[in-house]
């Protein structure tokens, strides 16, 4: 493909993925899947971020991630929701990007680490916001929840990625 054409294709796919991530966020907002720990979500939108990371590359995936956090925060949440989401989303992205770079992990491992990182990022911001370190008693539960949801999301992302061409 011609360079300019390829750039346009990537931009279009990036925009479509952002829209898809927003839909996932909205679905989770409307129909929260019950979880044993309060405040835990499956994080369906993260499927899109992982797919973007593997099919579009780091820069596009990062912009998809930031756009979906800011947009879904503005649409379904508030400024505080964006703050928490960014803390989780960006830390999670950093960890996933680093693990993917090693080429040792599959999407399942990458997503598992991302899920854990997401929860730890949010926990840290939450502890700072309420200025109370007792929140870290949630650490084991959130770590486990991050692993569990991350593995599920990673399996879905793997199933999607193997069927997608790299753009």
């Amino acid at each position: 493909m011609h360079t300019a054409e390829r750039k346009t294709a990537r931009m279009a796919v990036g925009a479509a993925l952002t829209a898809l991530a927003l839909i996932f966020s909205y679905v989770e907002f409307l129909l929260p899947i019950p979880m044993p720990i309060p405040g835990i979500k499956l994080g369906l939108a993260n499927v899109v971020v992982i797919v973007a990371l593997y099919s579009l590359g780091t820069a596009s995936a990062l912009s998809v991630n930031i756009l979906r956090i800011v947009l879904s925060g503005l649409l379904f949440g508030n400024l505080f929701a964006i703050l928490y989401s960014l803390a989780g989303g960006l830390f999670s992205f950093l960890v996933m990007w680093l693990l993917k770079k090693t080429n040792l992990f599959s999407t399942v491992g990458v997503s598992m680490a991302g899920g854990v990182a997401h929860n730890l990022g949010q926990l840290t911001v939450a502890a700072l916001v309420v200025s109370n370190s007792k929140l870290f008693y949630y650490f084991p539960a959130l770590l486990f929840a991050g692993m569990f949801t991350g593995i599920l999301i990673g399996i879905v992302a793997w199933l999607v990625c193997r069927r997608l061409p790299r753009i």
Partner: protein
Amino acid sequence: MDSGSAAAQAAGASGSRTSITRPVSQVNDMIKKADILLGIVLVLLCLSSLFLLNLSDENGSIVTVSVDGRHYGSYDLTENRRIEIGRPPKDAESKDTAGNSKDTSLKDASANDASANDASLKEADEAEGHSHAYNIVEIRDGAVFMAESSCANQVCVQQGAVRRVNQTIVCLPNKVVVSISGPKSDMDSVSY
């Protein structure tokens, strides 16, 4: 395209290239060795943190409430009571008399403490632009739960009751943290 060679090496085994011209590189086996190793490390980390944080089955005896990082009050877990933090809607309506009307929370906590903390809570609320923020913590039959909250997500209310040492209920939007400590309470030094 950064690591097409690595992908090509393992592609034969996975058989993922069926009908599509070129699948995403690096997507081969669903689970690799490193994934399992990472999983084991995380599980160990989870278990060791459980051990270190001392999350025991022991029932607690003291309920500590803090608002915005400041100690709001400590209460006996065996004594049934309702703790009102902030202004419930019925009080908030009469804004003109807010200055001289006593808050209901004054009845619950010791007078000096509560008035100071209550004032700081109001300041914090007004600074954030939501002056109707309130929470009602209820202690009943040796357990504590968030009976009501003005927050949007209601995570704190849905959490239900907690009774064991070091369990917490957090209302993030209102910055209210309810935690339980044991009888030998030296936890206050840790809570900041």
